[in-house]
């Protein structure tokens, strides 16, 4: 895979793949009638959450790792993706158990489905398990957040 240097379409591709995976989990949970269920997956945090429980994915940050720059064509990117569980609106009940169960489901599913087509290597890096009382101002909701680190190796060509 060779991209023009500066092309950041891999960010969109990674987000789309995460969204696809989470929707696959949503379908699995619906079939199995697990409790709690995920009702909807959004591909950004700044969203009007119309159904609960909701999951949203957004890019937290990314950085180019310079170790691959020796020959000028290989760059490794480290992306940190934020996955949020929305269990209620602010002012409502903060159900830690519900949030943890959903968090575990997502972690388990992503851990066993690591083979992204668009990435060469990725792993779950951190999980914010101590933050079940988080309030998300972008969506006026409460819930939990986990951070997933995904590394991506790209070979560049000159434009």
């Amino acid at each position, binding site marked *: 895979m060779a991209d023009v240097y500066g092309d950041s379409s891999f960010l969109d591709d990674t987000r789309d793949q995460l969204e696809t995976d989470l929707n696959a989990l949503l379908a699995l949970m619906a079939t199995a009638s697990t409790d709690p269920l995920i009702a909807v997956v959004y591909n950004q945090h700044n969203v*009007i959450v119309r159904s609960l429980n909701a999951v949203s994915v957004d890019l937290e940050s990314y950085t180019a790792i310079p170790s691959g720059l020796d020959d000028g064509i290989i760059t490794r990117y480290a992306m940190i993706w934020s996955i949020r569980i929305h269990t209620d*609106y602010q002012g409502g009940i903060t159900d830690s158990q519900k949030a943890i169960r959903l968090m575990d489901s997502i972690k388990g599913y992503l851990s066993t489905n690591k083979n992204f087509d668009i990435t060469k290597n990725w792993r779950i890096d951190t999980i914010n398990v101590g933050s079940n009382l988080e309030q998300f101002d972008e969506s006026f909701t409460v819930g939990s957040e986990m951070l997933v680190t995904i590394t991506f190796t790209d070979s560049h060509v000159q434009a």
Partner: protein
Amino acid sequence: MSLRNDITDGLHAATKLIKTQSGYDIHFEETSGLIVNLADLTRHRTPLLEIIDGGNEEKLVETSTGQLYRWDLILRGSSRVRENDIHEELNKILSTLKQWAFTVTPSTIHANVLNVKFQNVSAAGLVENTEYAAMEVGIRILYHTVGDY
């Protein structure tokens, strides 16, 4: 017709379904201010329910496709006390309104209403120089503008 008017209409319809503990319907009345009009109170049978716009609306979330708003309203229940215990009467009103706020399905009020929350008791007591007990319960509605609006 604005979205807020549509939601108010939906609120009318939903609160009309409230039944008191004794089983008879609550008479519904909408007021536009916070002042109890004694004439309005005495010409109605009780229990009487009024919906009052708290005048507190705030945009919480702005996205490329719509907005999320918070709207505070007050439900005021009034009931004739006569020989009854005023505390018992007030508790009946409170428990009825509170239970409604906790159990109502938001989408039955309007498709764009996402959430209804009981907030607080903002006032309670005997209406001065009358035989009516009144209880004001604050509720908070979250609604969004995504869709046809």
